[in-house]
């Protein structure tokens, strides 16, 4: 049963299994284990980013393609929900239509970019996606009539998903059973289904072919795998998953803006999650995303404390400033590419 759900891709290490179980339980019971708005927000962010990082890992880890347009697809899903809710009023129909439209737009754009650049030379892909993604981000912040420009869009989601809806008079385990909790479970199960679907994809024959292409393109082609077709299909699948993750994020936040869903900083975040967690395993993406979001929320406070403690030493407070946390993560990123190319998960599996 478990093996079937995980598509035969078991964690293969007791420590990794325990960590994954801890993440799963922590997220599944987050509203009751960690009551409070901020921690629920963190948990929802982890859910979304687990799905997003997993979809990126399909490209980076399994297909060996570097794309810098992943936030663009994420943003398309988010803006799809926002625009639909804005135009059709608050209803579940608008959420579904927006997610679908966002996913279709992402698929179409991924197909175009993929066919166009993967045909020529794989290395073009990284550069072309970078250019296209930044052009789209600029376009979204300039079309202020439609997208709200830099300010982004605020919109209303169905009342059943907001804190205004009450489902029980008595608090359950210290948490009021409001629509917010329902909304959290929508995000949680949405992300879980996306993650398991991606796990299924990478463990299918299709995923094996992707890995073969990653390892040796010429050989894969000689065996008879259609390299361009597989790469493009991987790009499209990963774009659609990213768009759906974006839709979940938009439903949770009730706000979209260029900085929250389209900016290059998010792209860097995803890259760090996947590489630090471990490329080429879906579990790596999950562990990486959980670690990263927790670090983002709590490491900065720690660094602030450290900076205060080091106030006497010249120079040290500057690099320990909470705003400079990316400096440390960037260094960690470079070191992990060199020394732990398989990331946390690879270490735990003993490879």
């Amino acid at each position, binding site marked *: 049963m478990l093996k079937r759900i995980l598509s035969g891709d078991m964690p293969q290490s007791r420590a990794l299994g325990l960590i994954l179980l801890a993440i799963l339980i922590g997220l599944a019971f987050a509203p009751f284990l960690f009551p409070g708005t901020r921690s629920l927000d963190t948990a929802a962010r982890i859910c979304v980013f687990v799905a997003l990082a997993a979809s990126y890992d399909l490209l980076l880890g399994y297909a060996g393609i570097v794309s810098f347009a992943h936030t663009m697809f994420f943003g398309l899903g988010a803006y799809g929900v926002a625009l639909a809710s804005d135009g059709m009023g608050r209803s579940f129909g608008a959420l579904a239509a927006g997610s679908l439209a966002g996913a279709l737009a992402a698929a179409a754009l991924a197909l175009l970019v993929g066919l166009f*650049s993967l045909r020529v030379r794989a290395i*073009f892909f*990284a550069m072309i996606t970078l*250019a296209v993604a930044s*052009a789209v981000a600029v376009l979204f912040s300039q079309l202020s009539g439609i997208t709200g420009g830099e300010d982004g869009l605020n919109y209303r989601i169905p009342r059943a998903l907001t804190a205004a809806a009450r489902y029980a008079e008595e608090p359950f385990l210290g948490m009021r059973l409001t629509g917010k909790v329902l909304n959290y479970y929508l995000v949680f199960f949405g992300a879980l289904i996306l993650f398991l679907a991606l796990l299924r994809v990478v463990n299918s024959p299709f995923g094996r072919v992707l890995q073969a292409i990653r390892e040796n393109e010429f050989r894969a082609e000689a065996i008879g795998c259609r390299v361009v077709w597989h790469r493009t299909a991987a790009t499209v699948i990963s774009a659609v998953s990213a768009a759906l993750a974006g839709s979940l994020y938009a439903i949770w936040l009730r706000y979209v803006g260029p900085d929250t869903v389209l900016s290059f900083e998010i792209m860097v975040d995803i890259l760090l999650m996947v590489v630090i967690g471990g490329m080429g395993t879906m579990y790596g993406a999950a562990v990486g995303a959980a670690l990263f979001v927790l670090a983002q929320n709590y490491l900065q406070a720690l660094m602030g404390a450290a900076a205060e403690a080091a106030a006497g030493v010249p120079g040290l407070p500057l690099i320990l400033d909470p705003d400079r946390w990316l*400096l440390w993560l*960037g260094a960690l990123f470079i070191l992990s*590419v*060199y020394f732990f190319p398989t990331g946390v998960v690879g270490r735990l599996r003993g490879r």
Partner: protein
Amino acid sequence: MTAAPGHNPTFAARGPAERLAEAAPFLLVPLLAAAGWLAIPQGSSWLTLTVSGLAMGMMIFIMASGLTLIFGLMDVINFGHGAFVSVGAFVGVGALAALDGLTGAPSPALNALALALAAAAAMLATGALGWAFERAIVRPVYGAHLKQILVTMGGLIVIEQLILVIWGPSEIFFSRPEAFKGALTFAGAAIEKYRLVAVGVGLALFLAMRTALRATRIGLIVRAGVENREMVEALGYRLRVVFVGVFVAGSALAGLGGVMWGLYEEVITAHMGGALMVLVFIVVIIGGLGSVEGCFLGALLVGLMQNYVAFLEPKLALISNIGLMVAILMWRPQGMIPVVKAK
């Protein structure tokens, strides 16, 4: 048994179509300028836009030329190139601020000297940084594209953050030396002096680079290395040493481009290099990876396109450059002047 066909090779003169195909990339720049002239109603604004487009193109060329040669020679894609642009701008502007005795002087010669010293400081700093970057970050990952992209991207993040540590998180506004302020009026069009300087520097640099690549021994080795690395190495040249030189020179040029861009905008931020990389990558791709001429033409096209479209329809400026890239790649998938790889 039939006799083998006789061997009589013919050397036909190339037809006009073939000659045109070779010259086509060079004709695109005047063609785009002519199209701009048709689209923009007033001749004077066209002239202003053309000069600023050329100036922008030249500056982008300065930044992109190093990147394209680095790729051509060693198959290394440096996503951290943008960091050198930012570092160059900060060091150069810092040097200008330190030289306020020269920049404030009323003499244009002293102003120009200040500018040259600032550029030299920036190039020295980014050249040294490039040397360290090549040793520490790029060298361990030769031949692995995926890791190269990831690691150089990590380098970009770290250097950007270090700039924020050293120079602080806010943008730095400043003004150019006195002699480079203001505009000349020519045929009713206002042309900023600094843009003419940028065009001059870019053109001089392009010609110098072309001469160095075509007429000197080291240029010959570099060009041969781009075409066939193994053969050059088999002939006994240590291409890796040449490559380090090219990497350092390319980084220094990125720094020079950064100073010039900073002086053009009169504001610098740590993220300016990363943002400029978008245009630099477009230029490198449409020019043909590894080709300096292609890079030059691509930069001019992108600069002109950006300025014309920004005047006609401001929201479409960046999208128009993506359109330009798509159009050129449809026409020539390997870029305008593809580099012949003997592999």
